[in-house]
């Protein structure tokens, strides 16, 4: 695989740029790139812009926050997916492998069932994701037999299925006219309601978690070797695994809390990034973040504009992700380049 890092990153940045322009230009109130630059320039220089106030509102209060949220969620899911794929030495792993998504979903579903406010539901989702992965880790590390990585994955699968049963029970109890549609909508993922106050609770965890993963990028290469090889190379794998799982879970939970469950991004985008710049995490993580941001933003734009009613994001990522992944499987020839 002739993967050139510079060319790969230029492609990724180009796609992100196109996605941003497309996201503003498409929709019921199109905003051109000139208007965005004008508005940002006016804000930076402190002078009033000569744009109509509706355009300003669309940029700063409606589409802008939604674009930023899509960028953050897409980058977060892609980086978490790449980290988990390396950690579990398995290219078919996605960020919800340890139950982060199912935990967050159960938290949110309970929040909706108890008729909590939006912020409280997001908090419940966030905490649910962290608690689920913490529980998986705690249970997994009490089992001393066998490969610790495999034990962790199996525990994640089992706990995830238990959480799924919990979600099913709440859906069964929920009021079918008010709560059930809200639950269903949330489980399919959407950025429709994103407003400016939603950005900070998303930005903080995503920056912290991504920062930790980026700081560990060289060590993550070694973590993707078999456990004993990594230790023979001088890496304390136990503590490092906890740090990587915690950071990746933090960004996943923040993304699920903000946008609901969006599958496939964390699975597909790391492959695409590896295709562009190779498997070395020092290059893979930044590229995956940029690509993930552009990918989810493009999908969210499609979700807004493809039909008179918004399409749930999880549906679109699955519809696009499935054939893409099958193509990837068919063309990967052995190694997961």
């Amino acid at each position, binding site marked *: *695989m002739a993967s050139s890092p510079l060319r790969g990153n230029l492609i990724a940045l180009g796609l992100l740029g196109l996605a941003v322009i497309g996201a503003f230009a498409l929709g019921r109130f199109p905003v051109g790139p000139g208007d965005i630059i004008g508005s940002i320039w006016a804000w930076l220089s402190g002078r009033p812009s000569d744009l109509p106030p509706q355009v300003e509102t669309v940029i700063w209060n409606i589409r802008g926050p939604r674009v930023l949220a899509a960028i953050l969620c897409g980058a977060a899911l892609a980086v978490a997916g790449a980290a988990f794929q390396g950690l579990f030495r*398995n*290219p078919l792993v996605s960020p919800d492998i340890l139950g982060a998504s199912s935990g967050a979903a159960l938290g949110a579903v309970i929040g909706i069932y108890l008729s909590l406010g939006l912020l409280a539901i997001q908090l419940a989702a966030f905490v649910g994701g962290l608690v689920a992965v913490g529980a998986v880790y705690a249970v997994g590390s009490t089992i001393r037999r066998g490969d610790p990585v495999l034990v962790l994955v199996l525990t994640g699968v089992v706990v995830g299925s238990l959480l799924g049963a919990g979600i099913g029970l709440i859906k069964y109890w929920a009021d079918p006219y008010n709560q059930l549609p809200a639950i269903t909508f949330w489980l399919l993922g959407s950025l429709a309601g994103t407003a400016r106050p939603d950005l900070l609770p998303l930005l903080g965890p995503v920056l912290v978690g991504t920062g930790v993963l980026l700081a560990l990028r060289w060590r993550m*290469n070694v973590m993707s*070797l078999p456990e004993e*090889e990594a230790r023979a190379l001088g890496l*304390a794998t136990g503590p490092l695994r906890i740090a990587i799982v915690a950071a990746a879970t933090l960004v996943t939970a923040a993304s699920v809390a903000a946008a609901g469950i969006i599958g496939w991004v964390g699975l597909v985008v790391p492959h695409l990034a590896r295709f562009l710049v190779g498997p070395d995490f020092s290059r893979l993580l930044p590229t995956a973040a940029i690509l993930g941001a552009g990918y989810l933003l493009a999908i969210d734009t499609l979700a807004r504009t493809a039909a008179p009613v918004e399409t749930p994001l999880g549906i679109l990522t699955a519809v696009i992700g499935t054939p893409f992944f099958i193509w990837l499987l068919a063309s990967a020839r*052995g190694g997961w380049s």
Partner: protein
Amino acid sequence: MSLAASALAYGYREREIGRDIELALKAGEVMALLGPNGHGKTTLLKTLLGLLPARGGGLSLDGQPLAALGIGARARALGYVPQAHAGTFAFTVAEIVLMGRTAHAGLFAAPSAHDRAVARAMLERLGIAALAKRPYTEISGGERQLALVARALAQEPRYIILDEPTASLDFGNQGKVMAQIRRLAAEGLGVLFTTHDPNQALRYADRVMLLRDGHALASGPAAALLTPDNLVALYGSAVETVRDADGRLAFLPG
């Protein structure tokens, strides 16, 4: 100066694999752990590397107890070459060898120019510099094994420990890898490798330890120890000996 075991008992938490191991690997010598498959060779290697805790007895590295050394200090003294595997991700050979520098850098540090220079030098030392940019997943088994030796050398260890270095290699590659191993000892490294092939031990090792059922049947100079009687005792099956006009020996399964 040696990697030494005395009265070593080894195995896993719930099961002892072997005991009473006396061993001292010195700089500049090649030692072979010879024995049938499934008789504790790999487990003993992992114990010597500090990857498994000893169940009893003593393990020391240049006079210091091995267990008292941190994981980084161990990796800077002991290089480990596992059996070549395909790998999950298509890292380039250069990236794989660079991972050998892990114990020489801080947790968050990127590899320095010096680290890259060492990795490059090790690729050249093993004659595989031309493979640097090739994906590790797409090179031959022999080349992979050499890449893993280069990675272990990039650790800049004093001892190098190889697990069945030729187990999955074809005839020609076996010779290439073993010749490199001999060269490393000539350059001053202590080399320990496991094998189930007595001819390999005879040809490339200075000393051998015969390991059966986790116990050392015998330990000493290769030429003196590798006799038909000892091999029959070791493998529990007949052995045929061939000898050429110069008196050189080879063993055939009988």
